[in-house]
C-alpha cells in the first residue's frame, strides 16, 4: 500500500495556486498571501519528525508546511482557516486527515482538526474559519517565517491521498476594526514636519523614514505604521504620490502633478519678482530643504508690544521737548519738575504705543478691526492726555486732547489699510526681507507713517500755538475755533494725499 501526500497546484502545473476568494469585506482584513511556504514530507513511522531524504519513500505519511505572513504589529488574530483540496487515491473510503498548527516551529501544536476525505474527485475541505483560533490566543509575531507551521497527518495504513493544494488564511483586525486593540505610537518629525521615526510606548523605534530633498524615500524600515510621511502629509502607497491638500505631489519628479490653482485663478497673487514662483508645477520654489516660513512672527507678540511702548516713549519725550521749545517752559521748571514732566510724557507715549501694538495683535482683521485699533489708539491718547495733565496738576484743553486722539486714531488705523505688495511675507534675518518688493513696501509704509506723524505733530503744535497766543497755557479756549482747526487739518491731509499720489505714480 502506498501512502503518499502530494502537494501540487490545482491545475497540476506545479506551484502555489492563487487567491480563490477568501477575502471578506468590512473592517476585517485578510492576509491573502501564501508567502514563502515550504513543504517538507516526513516519515513518522519511526516517530521522528526528521525530514526524509531526497527520495522519500512510501512511508511518508505527514507533511509540514511552513508559512510566513506579514501580520501588522498589534493586530488581533480573529481566526485561521485552512482549505485543502483533496481526493482519495485509491479504493479506501473516508480517509481521516488531521490538521494542526504550530506557533513555535513544531515544538507545540494546536489540537488536531480532522477532515474525512471521501471520493476520488478533488474536493475542498475547510477547517477553521474567520473566528476560529484553533483553541488558543495568537499574537502577530507567531506568523513569521520559521515559526508558524501547519502539519497534515494521515493514517499511513490507508490508501493514497492526493492533496492538490493547501490554502491557509489568517483573519485579523487592526486599529479601527470591530475587535481592534489600540496601540500607542509616537511620531518624531523632521525639520519639515515629515515623519522621521516612530516609537512605541516602550520607546523602541518601530519605523524609520527619511527622504531625499524632494520627497522620495531614502530610508524606509520597520513596520508601515504612518500614513503621513513626507512633510507630514498623506502618502498614497498605490500611486506613490503625496497628497498635499490642493494637489498631488510626485516626489520622484519633484513636481506637482497638476498646476497651481493660482495660475488660473488670481494672477494678482503671482509674484513677478520671484521667477521661481512662476513655475506652476514646481514645489517649494525648488528649495525644499530650507523652506522658510514667513509667518509674520518676526518678533514675539509681547516683544512687539514692548517695541511699540519703546517707540511711544521716545515719541512722548520728543513731543514734550517740542512743546517746551515752543513755550520755553523747560527753563522755568525745576529739575525735579522736568523729571516728572518728561517721565509722565514718556509713559504717556509708551502706553499709547504699547496699547496700540496690543490692539493690532488682538483685533481681528477687517474694517472693524481697523476701527478697534484706531479707537484704542485714540482712546489711549485722550485718556493719557487727561491723566498726564491730572498727574501734573495742569488743566487739559479738550480740543487739544480730541484732535490729538483723532490724529492718533487715524495714524494707527490708516497704516493697517495700506495696500500690500504681493508676494511672500518678509522675514527678518533672511534675504527674503530685502527683496525689491518688500523694500518698496517697507519704504512706502515708513514714508506714510512718518508723514502722518509729522503732520500730526505739526497740527498739534499749531493748535497749541494758537492757544498760547491767546494767553492760555496748555489749555483753555484759543482764538482759533474748532471748526477752523479742523479745516486746517483737512487741508493738510489733502496735501499729504496729493504728495503720496505723486510719489506712487513715480514708482
Amino acid at each position, binding site marked *: 500500500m502506498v501512502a503518499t501526500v502530494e502537494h501540487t497546484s490545482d491545475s497540476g502545473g506545479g506551484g502555489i495556486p492563487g487567491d480563490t476568494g477568501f477575502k471578506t469585506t468590512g473592517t476585517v482584513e485578510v492576509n491573502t498571501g501564501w508567502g514563502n511556504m515550504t513543504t517538507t514530507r516526513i516519515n513518522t513511522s519511526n516517530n521522528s519528525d526528521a525530514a526524509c531524504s531526497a527520495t522519500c519513500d512510501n512511508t511518508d505519511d505527514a507533511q509540514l508546511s511552513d508559512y510566513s505572513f506579514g501580520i501588522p504589529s498589534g493586530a488581533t488574530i480573529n481566526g485561521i482557516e485552512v482549505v485543502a483540496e483533496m481526493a482519495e487515491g485509491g479504493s479506501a473510503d473516508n480517509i481521516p486527515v488531521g490538521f494542526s498548527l504550530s506557533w513555535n516551529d513544531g515544538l507545540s501544536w494546536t489540537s488536531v482538526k480532522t477532515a474525512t476525505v471521501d471520493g476520488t474527485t478533488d474536493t475542498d475541505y475547510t477547517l477553521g474559519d474567520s473566528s476560529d483560533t484553533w483553541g488558543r490566543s495568537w499574537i502577530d509575531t507567531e506568523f513569521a517565517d520559521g515559526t508558524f507551521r501547519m502539519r497534515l497527518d494521515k493514517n499511513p495504513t490507508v490508501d493514497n491521498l492526493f492533496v492538490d493544494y493547501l490554502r491557509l488564511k489568517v483573519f485579523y483586525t487592526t486599529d479601527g476594526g470591530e475587535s481592534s486593540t489600540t496601540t500607542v505610537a509616537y511620531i518624531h518629525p523632521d*525639520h*519639515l*514636519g515629515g515623519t522621521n521615526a516612530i516609537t512605541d510606548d516602550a520607546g523602541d523605534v518601530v519605523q524609520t523614514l527619511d527622504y531625499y530633498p524632494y520627497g522620495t524615500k531614502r530610508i524606509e524600515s520597520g513596520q508601515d505604521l504612518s500614513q503621513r510621511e513626507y512633510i507630514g502629509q498623506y502618502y498614497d502607497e498605490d500611486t506613490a504620490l503625496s497628497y*498635499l*491638500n*490642493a494637489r498631488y505631489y510626485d516626489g520622484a519628479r519633484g513636481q506637482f502633478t497638476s498646476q497651481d490653482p493660482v495660475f488660473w*485663478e488670481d494672477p494678482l*497673487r503671482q509674484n513677478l519678482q520671484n521667477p521661481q514662483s512662476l513655475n506652476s508645477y514646481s514645489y*517649494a520654489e525648488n528649495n525644499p530643504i530650507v523652506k*522658510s*516660513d*514667513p*509667518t*509674520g*512672527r*518676526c*518678533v514675539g*507678540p*509681547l516683544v*512687539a*508690544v*514692548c517695541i511699540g*511702548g519703546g517707540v511711544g516713549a521716545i515719541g512722548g519725550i520728543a513731543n514734550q521737548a517740542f512743546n517746551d521749545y515752543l513755550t520755553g517752559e523747560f527753563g522755568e521748571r525745576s529739575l525735579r519738575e522736568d*523729571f*516728572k514732566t518728561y*517721565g*509722565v510724557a514718556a*509713559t504717556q507715549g509708551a*502706553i499709547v504705543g*504699547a*496699547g496700540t501694538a*496690543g490692539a*493690532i*495683535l*488682538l*483685533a*481681528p*482683521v*477687517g474694517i*472693524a*478691526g481697523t476701527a*478697534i485699533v484706531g479707537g*484704542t489708539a485714540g*482712546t489711549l491718547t485722550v*485718556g*493719557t492726555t487727561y*491723566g498726564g495733565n*491730572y*498727574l501734573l496738576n495742569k488743566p487739559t484743553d479738550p480740543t487739544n486732547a480730541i484732535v490729538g486722539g483723532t490724529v492718533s486714531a487715524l495714524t494707527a488705523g490708516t*497704516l*493697517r489699510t495700506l495696500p*500690500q505688495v504681493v508676494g*511672500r*511675507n*518678509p*522675514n527678518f534675518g533672511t534675504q527674503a526681507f530685502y527683496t525689491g518688493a*518688500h523694500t518698496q*513696501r517697507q519704504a512706502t*509704509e*515708513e514714508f506714510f507713517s512718518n508723514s502722518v506723524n509729522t503732520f500730526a505733530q505739526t497740527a498739534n503744535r499749531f493748535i497749541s500755538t494758537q492757544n498760547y497766543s491767546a494767553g492760555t497755557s496748555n489749555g483753555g479756549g484759543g482764538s482759533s475755533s474748532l471748526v477752523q482747526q479742523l479745516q486746517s487739518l483737512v487741508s493738510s491731509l489733502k496735501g499729504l494725499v496729493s504728495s503720496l499720489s505723486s510719489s506712487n505714480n513715480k514708482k
Partner: protein
Amino acid sequence: MTNIQNIKTRFYLDRTVAHGTFIILGVLLVLMASFSLLDGLSLRPVIFLLVSGAILAPFWFGFTQGTYVEISDKKLRVSRMFFRGKYTSLSNAISIHQRPIYGGLFAEVYLKVRKPDGTFREQGLINKPGLKEGDMKKLLEMIRSINPNIEVDQDLLHKTP
C-alpha cells in the same frame, strides 16, 4: 462618529498675548502714576490708576471674551469686542491666505470667498500672532473638514524654524 460640521466652535485669542499686553499697560500706568509722587504723597496716582483701570477694563474684557472666530453650521463669523460680523458660508470659500501687515511685523490670515456674481472678496479671520499655533491649525482643519476643496496657503500649514 461625531459630525464635526455640526459643532459650534469658537476660537478665542491667545489669552497669553491678551493678558501680557494689559499687564505691560498696567506696569506703564503705575510707572506714570509714580511720577506724581515726586511732589509728595497724594491721592492723585490712586485716582489716576482707578480711572485708567476703569477705562482699560472694557478693552481687556472685550479682547479676551468677545473676540473670536466662530464656526457654526458650515458658516464662519468673526466677533470683535462683542461686535459680531456677518456669517460667511464656507462652501463659498475657495482659499485661505496670509499677508503681512504693518511692515511684516504681523500676518493677517484671510479667506478668499467667491461672491454670487463670480467675483471674489476677502474675509479676514485673525492676525496670526493673536491665535495660538495649535488653535490656528485646528481652525484650518475645521474649515477644511467642512469644505475640503479650500486651498490653504502652504506657509500656514507648515511652519519651519
